[in-house]
C-alpha cells in the first residue's frame, strides 16, 4: 500500500498526463513516432523523482505501472494522430450540419458525411444552420497542413480538435430539411428562441452559457477586462449547475445518477465544449469515487479527465480551450491543496489562475490585460450568482410565463452595471502584458511550482523542480521549436 507521502499516491494520473502530453508535443516537433512516448515516459519519471523524497513499499512497482500506462497511451494517441487522414474523394450524399460559425468573410460549417466530420467554408448568404440536412456534391480533400509555428494559429489542428477529418469543397449544396430530432436541431431551435425572446446582454450570456456560442460584442467587452473565460462553457458553469443539482436532488436516493444525467445533458447541449467535458468528467469521477467510498484528490481527477480526453481525441492537445481549461483547473485543484488560510486562498486563487494561464494567452493572443487580475476578483463570484439567476429568468421567459418581459429587463440591469464597473477598472488599469519572456517564465514557473507544491513536500524543492522543468522547456523552445 502506497503511503500518502509520495506524489505518486496523490496524483498518479498527473504523471500519465505528463507522459502523453510530452509524447504528443515531442512528436509534433519532429521526434520519431517510436521515440516520442518513451521520451515522454522519461520526463514523467523525472517528475516523479523530482517530487518524491524517498521510496515507500510498492513505489517502484507503482512507478513502473504508471510509466507503462503513459507509454501505451502515448503510442495509442500518436497512432490516432498518424492515421487521421482522408483521400481525395468525390461525394454525392446526404449530410447534416453539426455546427456553424463565422470564419473570416465566410461561414465555416462542420458537416457530418457518412459518419465522418468535414469542414466546409461557404458564403455567408447560404444561411445554413446547425441541424440542417443537406444534399451535397463535391470533393473531399485532406486538410492543408499548417506551418508548425509555435504559438501561431494552426487551422488544421483547430478543426481536427473538433473531430473534423478533412475539408469538403462544395460543388452544390441543397437544403433538404431544417428540422430534426437530434441534439443539433434542438440547439438550433433553442438559439433561435433565445435570440428572439431575450434582451441583448442576457441573450449573449445565455447563448454563451447554454450553447457555447459567443456574441462578438460581449467577447470584445470581456476581452478588454480579462474575463473572456466566462463566455466559454467551462468548469465554472459546470460547477454552478452541479451545485444547483446537488441542492435540488440532495434528498433523492438516486442523487448521483440524476446529477450525472443532467450534467451530461448540459454538456451535450453546449456541443461538448472541451472545458465543459473536462469539468463534467472530473465531477463524474468524484461522484463515482464517492459512490465506491474511494478517496479522491482534485488534481488526480483533473488529470484523469485530461487523459481520457486525449485518448478520445488526441487533437484536443492543440485546442486552446482544452489547454486553458487544463492549466486553470490544475492550478485551482493544486492551489486548494496548499496549506494556506481559507481567506488567503479565496483572495489569491483568481490572480494565480490569471498568472498561470498568462503564458498560454500571450502566446495565442499576443497580450493579456492587467485589469483581469482585479476584475476577476469580483466578477467570478458575481457571475456565480447572476448566471444561474439569469438562466432561471430566461427559462421563465422562453416558456412564455407571465411578467417575462419585466423579469428579463430586471435581469439585464446587473449585466449592464457590471459592464460599467468593468469599464472603470479597465480605465484605471489600461495596461496589458505583451509577449515578454519574463512574464512567460514567471507564468510557467508559477504553474509548475503550484503543481509540485501540492504533490511534493517542501517549498524549496517545488521551486527548484519547477526550475528544472523551465530549463527543459527553454531548451526545447530554443533548439527544437524555433
Amino acid at each position, binding site marked *: 500500500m502506497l503511503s500518502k507521502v509520495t506524489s505518486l499516491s496523490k496524483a498518479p494520473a498527473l504523471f500519465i498526463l505528463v507522459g502523453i502530453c*510530452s509524447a504528443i508535443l515531442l512528436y509534433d516537433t519532429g521526434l520519431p513516432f517510436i521515440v516520442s512516448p518513451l521520451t515522454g515516459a522519461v520526463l514523467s519519471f523525472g517528475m516523479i*523523482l523530482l517530487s518524491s523524497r524517498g*521510496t515507500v513499499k510498492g513505489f517502484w512497482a507503482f512507478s513502473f505501472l504508471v510509466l507503462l500506462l503513459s507509454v501505451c497511451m502515448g503510442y495509442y494517441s500518436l497512432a490516432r494522430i498518424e492515421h487521421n487522414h482522408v483521400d481525395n474523394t468525390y461525394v454525392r450524399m446526404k449530410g447534416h450540419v453539426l455546427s456553424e460559425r463565422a470564419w473570416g468573410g465566410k461561414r465555416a460549417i462542420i458537416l457530418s458525411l457518412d459518419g465522418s466530420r468535414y469542414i466546409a467554408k461557404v458564403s455567408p448568404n447560404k444561411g445554413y444552420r446547425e441541424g440542417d440536412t443537406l444534399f451535397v456534391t463535391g470533393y473531399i480533400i485532406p486538410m492543408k497542413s499548417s506551418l508548425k509555428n509555435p504559438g501561431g494559429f494552426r487551422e488544421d489542428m483547430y478543426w481536427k480538435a473538433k473531430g473534423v477529418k478533412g475539408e469538403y469543397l462544395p460543388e452544390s449544396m441543397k437544403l433538404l430539411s431544417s428540422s430534426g430530432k437530434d441534439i443539433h436541431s434542438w440547439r438550433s431551435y433553442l438559439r433561435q428562441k433565445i435570440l428572439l425572446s431575450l434582451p441583448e446582454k442576457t441573450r449573449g450570456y445565455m447563448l454563451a452559457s447554454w450553447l457555447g456560442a459567443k456574441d462578438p460584442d460581449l467577447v470584445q467587452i470581456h476581452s478588454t477586462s480579462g474575463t473572456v473565460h466566462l463566455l466559454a462553457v467551462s468548469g465554472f458553469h459546470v460547477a454552478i449547475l452541479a451545485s444547483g443539482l446537488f441542492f435540488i436532488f440532495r434528498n433523492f436516493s438516486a442523487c448521483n445518477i440524476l446529477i450525472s444525467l443532467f450534467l451530461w445533458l448540459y454538456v451535450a447541449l453546449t456541443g461538448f465544449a472541451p472545458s465543459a467535458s473536462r469539468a463534467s468528467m472530473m465531477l463524474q469521477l468524484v461522484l463515482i469515487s464517492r459512490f465506491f467510498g474511494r478517496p479522491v484528490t482534485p488534481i488526480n481527477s483533473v488529470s484523469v479527465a485530461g487523459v481520457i480526453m486525449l485518448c478520445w481525441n488526441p487533437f484536443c492537445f492543440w485546442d486552446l480551450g482544452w489547454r486553458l481549461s487544463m492549466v486553470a483547473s490544475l492550478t485551482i485543484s493544486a492551489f486548494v491543496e496548499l496549506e494556506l488560510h481559507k481567506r488567503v486562498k479565496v483572495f489569491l486563487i483568481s490572480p494565480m489562475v490569471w498568472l498561470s494561464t498568462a503564458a498560454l494567452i500571450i502566446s495565442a493572443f499576443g497580450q493579456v490585460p492587467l485589469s483581469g487580475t482585479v476584475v476577476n476578483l469580483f466578477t467570478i463570484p458575481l457571475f456565480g450568482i447572476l448566471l444561474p439567476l439569469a438562466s432561471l429568468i430566461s427559462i421563465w421567459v422562453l416558456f412564455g410565463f407571465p411578467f417575462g418581459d419585466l423579469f428579463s429587463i430586471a435581469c439585464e440591469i446587473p449585466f449592464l452595471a457590471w459592464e460599467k464597473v468593468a469599464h472603470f477598472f479597465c480605465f484605471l488599469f489600461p495596461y496589458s502584458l505583451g509577449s515578454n519572456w519574463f512574464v512567460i517564465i514567471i507564468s510557467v514557473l508559477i504553474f509548475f511550482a503550484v503543481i509540485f507544491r501540492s504533490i511534493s513536500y517542501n517549498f524549496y524543492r517545488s521551486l527548484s*523542480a519547477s526550475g528544472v522543468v523551465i530549463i527543459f522547456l527553454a*531548451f526545447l523552445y530554443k*533548439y527544437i521549436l524555433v
Partner: protein
Amino acid sequence: MFTRKRTAIFFFLGGIGCFIIAALLVWHFTGKFVSSGPTTVAGPMPGQIEVVSSNSEARENKGNRQPSKWVIYITGSIKVPGVYEIESGSRVYQAVDKAGGLTSEADPVAINLASALSDGMHVHVPSLEERSNSPDPPVPSTATGKISHSYSSNVQGKTDINRADISELQTLPGIGPKTAENILSYRKERGCFNSIEELLKVKGIGPKKLEAIKDCVTCYPR
C-alpha cells in the same frame, strides 16, 4: 534523518538526470529523418537522384545508382490496400497483383493496368459505384502529392476553373477576355481555386456573375 535527506537529494538528482536524458533524446532524434533522409531506400523520382539511408552511403552513390525498389501506395477496390515496395520499372497491373488483385467491385475499365508507375506514386482503383458517382478518372499521384494525371478541363459539360484555358473560360456566360485573363492570373498567383465561391475574389466577378456561371463550372483541386 541524514539518510532520508540524502535519499531526497538522490531522488532530485535522479529527476534532473531524467530531464537530461530526455533532452539528449530530443536533441539526437528531432528532425533526424528530415535532415538525413529516410532509413529505407525509397527510390528516386524519375530522372532524379535517390535519397539513401545514410550520409556516407549518399556520398558513395550520389548521382549514379538507380534503386532496385520503388514504393507505391495503392488504395481503392483492391484486396489489400497499402504501401508496397515494388521492382523499379513496374506497371500498374504488377502493383495490383502485389496488393492481392482487384476486388469484385473494382472497375477495370476506369484504370489503365498497363500504365507505367513511378516511385512514390499513389494508385487509386475506383469501384463501379465510384465511377458512376464521380466524373473523374482514377487518381495516380506523384511522391510530392500533386496529381500527375492530366484531367479534362471539361467534366460533364462543366468547365473546371482550375484547368480551363482562356478560350474555355470565355465560353462561360458573362466572361469576356479580360475577366478570363483575371481568372488565369488569380489561378497563377494562388495555385488553384479551392471552391467555386472563390471566384468572387477575382476582379470583375461579383455575386450576380457568379450566380450566372456557377452551374456551368466545377472546381477540382489540383
